[in-house]
């Protein structure tokens, strides 16, 4: 404590002397852990020696470049604590000492991130705005998803041939949003199946998915007024095991030869086994997943593929659920914003103006 006092007094005494030569400032808009140390001598010194003392009187030597004038940022400090600086400068035999006191302050906002915050608020605001508008009953337009065209074709073919339709809701459990989206589509398909009196087979991997699927299909048959045609035993549990599940479905495809297969939900390594077997039985195949790695296998061996977001869009399109619909519109707003930003950015870059890109990159630092 005593040492600190002496150091402090010394600094006070020397302060007026060094005021114009050295200067310590707080780094603005930061977490209060850094100070900027500036120095400016009339002539080039031969050597410089800077020492920093914290409130507990611990001294740390700080390396600074040997130059006539400069600024050194000192980090890793504690916010609010007072730090004393002592700089010794040598010109041959001549020596001078300068001292300064400063304390770093924590700000209430990272100013450089303002654009990041603004974009966050704009995108989130758009999503929320659309959700609330949808909940108020506003009906938004969503284009028809191409992959869904298969539904009518599939039902038509199945009715004509008198064969069932196979629907696989993916290998995800009920906490997976892809499975949820898949069940929405299943509900729609089941209703059409009920209307045309076509059998619908739904093998499930998890018991939770099983009960949800039964619920969904039963409801759909009820809506179509054909509850009598609903066959609970067609919606069944196969096994929890990933490959065992696929082997089971393979067996069904070879035995029953469904007229149409639907693989919608989350799929992993098993996608290609399913798609291959289905392809070889000649069924009309529709697949959809958000797992980008698996899409190639579906694209080559299925007639229709819902790619990534398509799966969720299809679910929103069919269910008209305000939450899904509003969200999707919000995302669309974001996509438009992204496209616009990219196009403006590219034009500016070609013109040699890097202002916009620097602005966004700066906000992300």
């Amino acid at each position, binding site marked *: 404590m005593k040492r600190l006092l002496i150091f402090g007094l010394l600094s006070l005494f020397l302060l007026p002397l060094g005021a114009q030569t050295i200067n310590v400032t707080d780094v603005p808009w930061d977490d209060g852990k850094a100070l900027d140390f500036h120095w400016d001598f009339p002539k080039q010194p031969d050597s410089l020696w800077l020492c920093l003392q914290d409130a507990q009187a611990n001294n740390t030597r700080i390396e600074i470049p040997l130059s006539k004038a400069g600024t050194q940022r000192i980090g890793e400090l504690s916010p609010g604590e007072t730090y004393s600086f002592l700089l010794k400068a040598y010109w041959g035999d001549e020596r001078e000492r300068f001292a300064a006191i400063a304390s770093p302050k924590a700000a209430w906002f990272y100013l450089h991130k303002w654009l990041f915050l603004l974009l966050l608020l704009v995108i989130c605001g758009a999503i929320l705005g659309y959700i609330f508008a949808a909940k108020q009953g506003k009906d938004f337009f969503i*284009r028809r*998803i191409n992959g869904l065209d298969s539904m009518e074709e599939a039902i038509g073919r199945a009715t004509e041939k008198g064969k069932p339709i196979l629907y696989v809701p993916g290998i995800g459990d009920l906490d997976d949003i892809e499975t949820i989206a898949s069940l929405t589509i299943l509900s729609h398909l089941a209703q059409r199946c009920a209307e045309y009196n076509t059998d619908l087979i739904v093998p499930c991997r998890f018991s939770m998915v099983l009960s949800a699927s039964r619920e969904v299909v039963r409801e759909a048959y009820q809506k179509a007024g054909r509850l009598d045609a609903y066959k609970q035993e067609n919606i069944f549990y196969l096994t929890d095991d990933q490959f*065992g599940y696929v082997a089971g479905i393979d067996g069904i495809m070879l035995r029953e030869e469904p007229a149409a297969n639907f693989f919608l939900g989350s799929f992993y390594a098993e996608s290609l086994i399913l798609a291959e077997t289905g392809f070889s039985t000649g069924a009309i195949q529709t697949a959809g997943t958000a797992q980008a790695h698996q899409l190639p296998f579906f*694209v080559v061996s299925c007639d229709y593929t819902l790619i990534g*977001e398509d799966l969720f869009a299809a679910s929103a399109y069919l269910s008209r659920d305000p939450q899904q619909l509003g969200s*999707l519109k919000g995302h669309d707003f974001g996509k438009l914003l992204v*496209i616009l930003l*990219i196009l403006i950015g*590219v034009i500016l870059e070609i013109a040699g103006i890097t202002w916009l890109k620097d602005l966004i*990159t700066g906000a992300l630092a």
Partner: protein
Amino acid sequence: MLSFMQSISPMLSSFMQIFGIWLSALFTLSIFSFLYKDNPFYKFAEQVFVGLSAAYWLVYIIHSILIPNLFAKLIGDFGGNAILLIPAALGLMMLLRLHPNTQWLSRYPMAIMIGTTAAISLLRYLKSDILFQVTATMINPLGGETTGEIVGNFLLILGTVCGVFFFYYSKKQEGIYKVPSKIGIWFLMISFGATFGYTVMARVSLLIGRLEFLLRDWLKII
């Protein structure tokens, strides 16, 4: 007895090593037997795998999370770490999910975990997968050094913009709007082709690894 144990120890150890390799080979072939059809060997190997994997996770969760980050801290300096009783209690509430009557209590730790993950994902995805990708696409296509790079840069910009437009659902894809969407799907197809090629590479690699084990460690052909 002890000296007897010691004297056979090297023999036992080399026996155990050979036994281990045979065990590995047995398990490897059992899994491969699925290629013929689903059979008892495969089912057995599969369940052993599930069991071992679960035990491994359990042991490591206890050893590397619960002991050092919770129990050791609480035992070492209870006063200083008493606040850790809160996550410990929340963790125990998580386990109450197993019983239907106490299941509702697990919603609190769940809400905290999901809330934290959601907020972190929101920030990170917005930054890394959206905004950084936007600035990475803001390039001067003419800035490339070779013709290949210039063409590539144009494709990069075109593909990104059209690809994003492909996932735009608020407009019917008719007339002029059909064009970017079509281009977008072409780019997606090229990318899927690349993924396809890479997947072939990955799966073949894994097979090479297993065959190498069978040929080198087990049969000692190589």
